[in-house]
């Protein structure tokens, strides 16, 4: 081990309590940042789940649509116009809307109904654990997620309830299709969804456009947009971005999460700066000795930065473990904390930069050091 690293580690460990305080400070700050950013990522992901699972090449949406849950409607007859555009293989209608689910024991609970063709081009339920997509073709058949069984007052496959007065029969059970609004998603066919939501005939929510092989997305998008002036044509990425910006920034939730993360960074920096500063103050005589025996300022700074780095690495490791637990615990919740390799790497870089910035005050102190203090007894 290089001597300067050894010196840094020994200086850190010498005052154990302060070292523990530093590490705890870093851990708290980084866990806070991780949770906030992880929630942000999780939120981003959750609000675009449906868009991701629709596997459409393009979305035809009512003009001004802000997010997937937007209640605006399109004229169903526009489908023919869409199909007439070169490069369009299919334009699958999709119907979404809120409906009232009558709980067996009495009372109602809102649900979010998604009606689509059961063929490959539609938005069909995934993660089916009991029953099948095919079964949804049966009379009154719907798919529900088992996470919401309690709320929906059902116990499993075959239960029959009513949605907006119409009979509904659970023909498929999914696992893990959760909504961040906590309103359960109910999948069914287009016609049944119309009945459940009360959306008038001739109106749909979206068209899921699938391109013919070899068609250029951008060209088709422009031609569709020209043909359908009352609608907008978006790529899944554009629609996701819209949904994200609506839910994250339209509601202030995203700003709150980012502000929380920022606060974590500030608190962490201040804590580390404070402990590094006081540690340096305690070791000033030693740093002065180093200077007296000829050490360059850079050498002494290295020792301080080393202390910061060692704290950063140890703090980060603890924080990563705690965050991993948080990720695991929230995995199946409505708002999971999401960790990606990029976020992990980013957090490591953040921890290290935070600690190095914190070393600044200590370094300034050491630069001003008077080596003459070594002669004082």
């Amino acid at each position: 081990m290089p001597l300067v690293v050894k010196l840094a580690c020994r200086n850190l460990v010498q005052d154990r309590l302060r070292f523990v305080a530093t590490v705890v400070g870093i851990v708290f700050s980084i866990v806070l940042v991780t949770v906030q950013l992880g929630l942000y990522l999780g939120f981003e992901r959750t609000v675009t789940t449906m868009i991701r699972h629709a596997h459409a090449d393009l979305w035809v949406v009512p003009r001004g649509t802000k997010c997937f849950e937007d209640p605006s409607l399109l004229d169903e007859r526009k489908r023919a116009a869409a199909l007439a555009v070169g490069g369009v293989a299919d334009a699958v209608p999709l119907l979404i809307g809120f409906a009232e689910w009558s709980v067996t024991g009495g009372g109602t609970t809102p649900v979010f109904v998604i009606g689509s063709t059961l063929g490959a081009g539609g938005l069909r339920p995934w993660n089916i654990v009991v029953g099948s997509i095919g079964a949804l073709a049966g009379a009154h058949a719907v798919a529900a997620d088992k996470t919401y069984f309690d709320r929906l007052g059902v116990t499993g496959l075959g239960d029959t309830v009513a949605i907006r007065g119409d009979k509904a029969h659970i023909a498929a059970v999914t696992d893990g299709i959760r909504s961040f609004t906590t309103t359960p998603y109910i999948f069914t066919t287009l016609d049944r969804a119309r009945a459940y939501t009360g959306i008038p005939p001739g109106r749909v929510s979206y068209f899921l456009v699938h391109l013919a092989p070899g068609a250029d997305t951008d060209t088709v998008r422009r031609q569709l947009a020209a043909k359908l002036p009352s609608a907008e044509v978006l790529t899944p990425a554009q629609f996701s971005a819209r949904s994200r910006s609506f839910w994250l920034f339209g509601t202030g939730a995203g700003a709150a999460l980012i502000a929380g993360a920022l606060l974590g960074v500030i608190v962490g920096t201040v804590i580390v700066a404070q402990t590094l500063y006081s540690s340096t103050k305690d070791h000033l005589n030693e740093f002065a000795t180093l200077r007296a025996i000829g050490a360059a300022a850079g050498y002494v700074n290295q020792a301080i930065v080393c202390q910061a780095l060692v704290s950063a690495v140890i703090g980060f490791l603890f924080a990563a473990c705690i965050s991993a637990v948080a990720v695991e615990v929230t995995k199946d919740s409505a708002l999971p904390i999401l960790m990606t390799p990029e976020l992990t790497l980013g957090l490591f870089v953040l921890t290290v930069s935070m600690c190095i910035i914190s070393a600044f005050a200590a370094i300034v102190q050491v630069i001003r050091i008077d080596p003459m203090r070594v002669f004082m007894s």
Partner: protein
Amino acid sequence: MISPIIAGKGISMRLGRGAGQVEALKGIDLSLYGGQLTLLMGPSGSGKTTLLSILGCMLCPTAGTIEVGGCDTIGARPEQLARIRRGQIGFVFQRYRLLPTLSALDNVRLALDVRGDHSRHATEKASATLDGFGLSHRRNAYPHELSGGEQQRVAIARAIVADPAALLADEPTGALDGDSGHGVMTVLARVARDPSRAVLVVTHDPRIVPFADRIVHIEDGCITGDESSLDRALRPAVAASCYA
């Protein structure tokens, strides 16, 4: 002719500010020669430490010139002074100033480390230097496990491990009992036998006078005496260079 390792001419130093300002040194000429142990003696507050730190490039004098190894150091910035110290000068302090979290060996190795020598050879050299001072069995001990005399010998090892041209010691026996002080001075006298190295020892302690080749007296910032008790054979050469 023998040229000095450190040559100070007309050194004056004012310390402090305003009403508390002190003229600590008043136009001192002092040169240190290789192979000599020079004692700098004088009452408390006479300016010994101030002079030692100026000769050792730790402080810049208010007036006068310092040449180390023939190079002028006046006007050098703190970082340049640190480089000169690194290259030419070893220090020994009254309070040892060993780093408490490092072993004796690492404390000695540190002097090479700050000079950019991180090699295995550095460890061997540090180890050999400690051995030379009879500390081979204390290599892995920490400063708080060593006696005062042992700590000071480790400090001397740290000061000379990089072969500085000058070794400057401020009251190296000041915190030691008679026997330990004697041991430390024996080591310093041996270090001074190297003709390429000058040793300056600031002291109050009359018991170490027999170790000196030369004794300089300072009082109230002025040199009041400079007796050579050095090896007769060297005396003419030094004298000649003083008149050169």
